[in-house]
């Protein structure tokens, strides 16, 4: 499997990251994402700066990638199309360290404390921070921003609401002090706060727009860059914020963020040096880029399980034997490999490759039935299960719903053929536009479908909660298992690695028994940059997909 060694190669840092995410660090300079067993505090040990010795000031970076979004409200969206062009204009309460990537460090909060019971987080904001319109940052802005995320008004969507389900309230306890009150501990709360979308907006902006900024292209942030101009769907130009609270930053005079379709168009612009930093190029351009002097590449990892989803509300997929049989006959390695030249992926299972537990999980299961390439024994077992379920003659006329996404269109016929060949399951592929797919999926108008969803952080409490928990945000296909739901809830509370691991294993056992879906891949995203672009740390970014797009420590060497 191509790409897999990259993930494995990250194992040390991944484990380290997760350990630091889960273990309280009372004396750390920058607090990790842990729920502490005892009261802890963290503070600013110095302002962020580029990792290189003598970064240069000036220049306009040309960033290219997906930047044409259908809405502008960062709290309501979940796509790179927003992060690329908008993230540089905003700050977070805390952030993932863009130099070392393995810890959460101060941002607008210069320090914080966590109560002994892990139920109260108190953040102390920096003094003198100003929004781009000149207004000072106050605790009320932070409260309004998180109320927007946690308690959105009707008609406002909050994709990361579930990440903060334990937060019962956010209150300003002083002009520059904010408290988060939790109903139960959350080991990943800081990491969740540091997810790139959770930017701090101005209370007045939110109120003036009824807490809905979907169609507001420009609203003030406190970030290192200010809005300069916008040609929707073409380019957004940002300029340096001269009043940025970190006086040495940003190094760049500006960023021109070009909207280019993911893949070949970004790749072409990259190879021709029409852009300096190329977000999400295709593997063919990536291969060419590796041969070009001055052009560098690396791969980063979103948290996104992809595979085959059943409509569990319909026969025969309410019968676990049918699902198990289908799982046994699909050669997932072959399916994943089919798109490597177009859409690179690594194998995934119930635990994602970006999750630190993957390193322990995957070697254990990859040769097990259902995960390995089907053996004669697996095929015989699959046929036996189908017979037992009363489908020894197979199935006919299944509605195989597929979104018109290139790699889904490649996977579809392969899956269709494997099912027909091994189990006499005949399906008709129905290709629909994305907008149609979401409607059809939600209405249950399908039998099977290829699907993938993105999570915010690499923690089962996030991606199991969204995809497999009863009523989860992406659980459109009707999976419900109260025992599994209880485990997901417990993983969110648990911060001790050994106990968390035990819970994850219990969850895996249930998912193996139920086979609510057939997961086979997690995408990897090829990135490229010309050697004049410094300070971005893409090569060591790894699993920090949604972070590192604020660009304040990026600089141009020439």
């Amino acid at each position: 499997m191509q790409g897999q060694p990259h993930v494995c190669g990250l194992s040390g840092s991944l484990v380290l990251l997760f350990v630091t995410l889960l273990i309280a660090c009372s004396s750390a300079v920058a607090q990790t994402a842990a729920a502490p067993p005892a009261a802890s505090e963290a503070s600013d040990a110095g302002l962020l700066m580029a990792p290189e010795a003598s970064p240069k000031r000036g220049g306009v970076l040309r960033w290219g990638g997906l930047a044409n979004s259908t809405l502008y409200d960062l709290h309501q969206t979940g796509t790179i199309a927003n992060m690329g062009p908008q993230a540089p204009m905003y700050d977070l309460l805390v952030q993932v360290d863009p130099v070392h990537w393995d810890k959460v460090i101060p941002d607008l909060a210069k320090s914080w404390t966590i109560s002994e019971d892990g139920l109260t987080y108190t953040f102390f904001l920096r003094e003198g921070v100003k929004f781009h319109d000149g207004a000072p940052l106050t605790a009320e802005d932070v409260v309004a921003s998180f109320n927007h995320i946690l308690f959105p008004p009707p008609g406002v969507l909050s994709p990361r609401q579930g990440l903060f389900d334990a937060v019962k309230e956010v209150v300003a306890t002083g002009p520059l002090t904010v408290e988060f009150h939790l109903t139960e501990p959350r080991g990943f709360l800081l990491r969740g706060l540091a997810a790139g979308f959770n930017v701090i907006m101005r209370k007045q902006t939110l109120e003036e727009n009824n807490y809905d900024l979907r169609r507001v292209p420009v609203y003030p942030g406190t970030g290192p860059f200010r809005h300069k101009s916008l040609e929707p769907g073409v380019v957004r130009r940002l300029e340096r914020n001269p009043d940025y609270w970190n006086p040495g930053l940003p190094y760049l005079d500006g960023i021109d963020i070009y909207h280019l379709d993911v893949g070949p168009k970004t790749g072409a612009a990259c190879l021709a040096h029409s852009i300096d930093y190329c977000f999400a190029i295709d593997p063919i351009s990536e291969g060419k880029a590796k041969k070009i002097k001055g052009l560098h590449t690396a791969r980063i990892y979103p948290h996104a399980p992809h595979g085959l989803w059943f409509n569990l509300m319909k026969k025969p997929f309410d019968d676990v034997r049918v699902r198990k049989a289908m799982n046994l006959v699909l050669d997932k390695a072959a399916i994943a490999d089919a798109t490597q030249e177009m859409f690179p992926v690594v194998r995934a299972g119930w635990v994602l490759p970006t999750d630190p537990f993957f390193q322990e999980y995957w070697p254990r299961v990859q040769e097990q039935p259902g995960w390995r390439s089907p053996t004669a024994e697996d095929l015989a077992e699959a046929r036996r299960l189908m017979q037992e379920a009363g489908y020894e003659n197979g199935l006919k006329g299944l509605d195989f719903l597929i979104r018109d996404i290139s790699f889904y269109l490649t996977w579809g016929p392969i899956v269709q053929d494997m099912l027909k060949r091994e189990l006499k399951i005949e399906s008709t592929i129905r290709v629909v536009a994305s907008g149609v797919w979401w409607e059809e999926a939600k209405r249950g108008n399908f039998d099977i479908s290829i699907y993938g969803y993105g999570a915010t952080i690499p923690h089962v409490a996030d991606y199991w909660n969204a995809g497999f928990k009863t009523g989860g945000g992406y659980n459109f296909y009707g999976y419900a298992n109260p025992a599994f739901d209880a485990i997901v809830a417990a993983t969110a509370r648990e911060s001790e690695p050994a106990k968390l691991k035990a819970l994850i294993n219990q969850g895996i056992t249930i998912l193996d028994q139920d086979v609510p879906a057939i997961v086979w891949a997690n995408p990897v995203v090829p990135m490229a940059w010309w050697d004049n672009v410094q300070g971005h740390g893409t090569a060591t970014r790894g699993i920090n997909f949604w972070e590192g797009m604020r660009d304040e420590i990026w600089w141009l060497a020439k």
Partner: protein
Amino acid sequence: MSTYIVRRVLLSIPALLGVTIVIFVALRVMPGDPVSVMFGTQATKIRPEDRAKIEADLGLSSPLIVQYGKWLHDIATGKLGRSFWRGDTVVDLLVQRGPLTVEIAVMAIVLSWVVGVPVGILSALRQNTLLDYVARFFTVLFLAIPNFWLGAMIVLGLLLWQDYAPPLGVINLWDDPIQNLQIVWGPALVLGLAISAYIARMTRSGLLEIIREDYIRTARAKGLREQAVVLKHALRNASLPIITLSGVLFGLLLSGTVVVEQAFNVPGLGKAMVEAFVMLDYAVVQNLVLLYGVVFVVLNLLVDISYAWLDPRIHYT
């Protein structure tokens, strides 16, 4: 003549109203839902009450007749509505992206005449010679090659062999002519060559018919130079169908920009239309289709008017 023009303009109003009805209905019966497109993978999470609010915000909760009436009102007041997604108005979009598309269209038409008419003349005057065969081969070739394929080949060829790609973004002619031409030449060339093939064939067949007419023989018998015979007498009379065809081809060219701008990644109206269509941005699609309809109607009117100028025997009342 003025009465004729007024009558034609008035007659075009029902035609354009027909266009508005067709595109409005087509978008509404098309499968898919703008709210789902707006939120992408998050769409499966939308609660019914949130959906109702979002649809109301987008103006989609009103009865269809009300939505249609509102659109007509927007057209009448020149507002043309707001993009569902981008916060800007359709007028902003036209101002921002229109110049590139107009430039491509004009360059393509000019190119089609500059290439197509001389090739057609030579082909007709040297009928069944090697020159004629070569000209006919290339005209058939450019008729057969799909625009998107030729565009993709040019883009790939320049990238792979010259490491070249056109500048990104909207750069207008008056801002930076050199960079602007780098953006528009490719699409204009692809569209121009395709249309020039039609023009060349029409010119050839028209001329072949006319140069056999008695008055051409008379002109030659009077001792006129061949150049004057061809350009002044034959071509002028052969140009009526060429002009008619050009009017029709301009419509083809507009639809061609939709494909070619995509291939060359030119941020013109054609590309905007594709993006809006994919994202079910009704306001943008409706108004761009209407705009293309208006251009088509106006162009055909101009073609008809030009007949009277080219052929004094034609009078409009």
